[in-house]
């Protein structure tokens, strides 16, 4: 490859120095296939192939061994759409997402404002707010399962309540949401903090000279400057929250929670795949789930594009 490029470059050099430079420059940016090849290989094996395989399996009655599967057409999909547990578990994941996303976004912003404006001990605040994110989900879940324990846990003790947190269907998901807020807010907090640090200070100085008070500065400078990071935080949180699994299963001892109230969509997929050994059916609900996630992601892209166009 390099040799042929040189033979092309040779006559060019004879003509003008400028022509040679352009050619060599182009040569530097050409034929990049080898750069992306290692990633694409892994990506094909562990993302694309399972995706295609999942779509194929969803039309079969495959079990966990993958032997003797026969083609059943749309049966799995028909069954899934009439399966109350599919709708229930999807509802639980959506409910969780609707509670977590707004709370995390607001909380992360407030924490970042706090950590940004306190002048002393910046590293300490960062550490405090980010530390929970550094725990494995299972550890965070066990910790809070223990805190929420009705008799021996600290939460009821501190607040003087007797709430059956993880054993009553009206509280169980709420307990999981609270755990998740504590555990994951640090990541969004860090994104906000980095964004706040990136706002040029002269904007604030100019506003101060114009007599803007702290509230005006926040509404007219800080919030608009944070708009794109807020979009990112929300998008990442929605995608992550829809896929909730770890906390929900660990906090309810690997069961679907009181009256199945914390069975999430991922959990249901794995139950069908690994407990009932219905790989074909589990694949069908995975595909449905993938379509939902993709729809959410495309909706976001579409909204962003529209906003950019109106901005222009």
């Amino acid at each position: 490859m390099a040799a042929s490029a040189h033979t092309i470059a040779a006559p060019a050099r004879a003509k003008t120095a400028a022509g040679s430079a352009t050619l060599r420059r182009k040569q530097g940016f050409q034929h990049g296939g080898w750069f992306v090849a290692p990633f694409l290989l892994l990506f094909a094996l562990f993302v694309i192939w399972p995706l295609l395989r999942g779509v194929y399996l969803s039309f079969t009655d495959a079990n966990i061994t993958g032997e003797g599967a026969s083609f059943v057409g749309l049966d799995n999909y028909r069954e899934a759409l009439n399966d109350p547990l599919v709708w229930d578990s999807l509802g639980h994941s959506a409910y969780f997402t609707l509670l977590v996303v707004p709370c995390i976004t607001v909380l992360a912003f407030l924490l970042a404002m706090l950590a940004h404006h306190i002048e002393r001990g910046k590293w300490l605040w960062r550490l405090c707010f980010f530390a929970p994110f550094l725990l494995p989900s299972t550890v965070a879940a066990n910790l809070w399962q223990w805190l929420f324990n009705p008799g021996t846990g600290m939460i009821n003790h501190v607040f003087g309540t007797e709430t059956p947190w993880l054993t009553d269907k009206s509280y169980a998901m709420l307990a999981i949401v609270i755990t998740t807020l504590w555990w994951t807010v640090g990541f969004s907090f860090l994104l906000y903090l980095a964004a706040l640090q990136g706002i040029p200070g002269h904007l604030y100085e100019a506003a101060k000279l114009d007599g803007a008070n702290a509230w005006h500065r926040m509404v007219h400078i800080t919030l608009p400057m944070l708009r794109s990071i807020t979009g990112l935080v929300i998008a990442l949180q929605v995608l992550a929250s829809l896929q909730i699994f770890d906390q929900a299963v660990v906090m309810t001892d690997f069961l679907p929670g009181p009256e199945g109230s914390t069975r999430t969509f991922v959990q249901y997929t794995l139950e069908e795949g690994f407990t009932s050994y219905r790989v074909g059916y589990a694949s069908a609900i995975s595909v449905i789930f993938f379509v939902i996630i993709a729809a959410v992601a495309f909706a976001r892209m579409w909204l962003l594009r529209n906003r950019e166009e109106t901005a222009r």
Partner: protein
Amino acid sequence: MTTKAWTPSQILLTLLGTAVSILFLAPFAWGLFTSLKSETEAVEVPPHWLPEDWTGQAWKALFESGNITNWFVNSLVVSVCVTSVVLLVSALAGYGFARTEFRGKSVLMGVVMAGLMISPAVLGVPLFTTVQQMGMVDTYWGMILPQCAPAAMVYILYKFFQGIPRELEEAAFIDGAGRWRVFFTIVLPLSRPSLAAVGIFTFIASWNNFLWPYMVTNNPDLMTMPNGIATVMNSYGIQWAQLMAGGLMAGLPLIIVFVFFQRQIVAGVAHTGLAGQ
């Protein structure tokens, strides 16, 4: 350090920050104190914060019952391998997509972006059967390789590489440097903060990953920390003091890393273009 004034608003903010921090740290304290109680004291009603009899029993039992050191080593092996592979392949791919031309580039880029939406959570079952077909269930390979194709990391580095002025590389090309040499001697050193952020977040994600190792391992000797603690320790009937000790063991390494590198981590987040997008 002493030059900053304690204005009334700073005092107020600091007090507020302290209160919020105590709230954030309380669960850690609860875990730590529980781990220093005896198992009987841990389940006393009503609960109390500080142990009446401070004892290292739970910690001792944790190490004596064996598995934990195994899990720790497994976690370390898996996370280090995943991080190294991810850094290498996603830096190469990010550069390839940002700075070189090849046939089908835009289509492939689109496919990779679509991959942002696909995680083991979404495709757990088919991914498992694929890995099973490759004979990698209950192996290190099976735990490591499927974690090594994160489209998000490629995207972050792609964005970053796009921001590097082309002139820097062009000058080197004109001087006769090859593409690979430019990549390794000019581009990579410039990208250190972004690579650090990608590396650190990959390491955190991999160290804390529960779902995939949970699916792909049944052998307790091969489990990683989060996995072993959640599944094996729970299955004996929960011993809370020990469970808390195990949890702190699993969480501590990353917290220590963060204490030392937090400045770089925050700078890295800013640099990745994540924040500025």
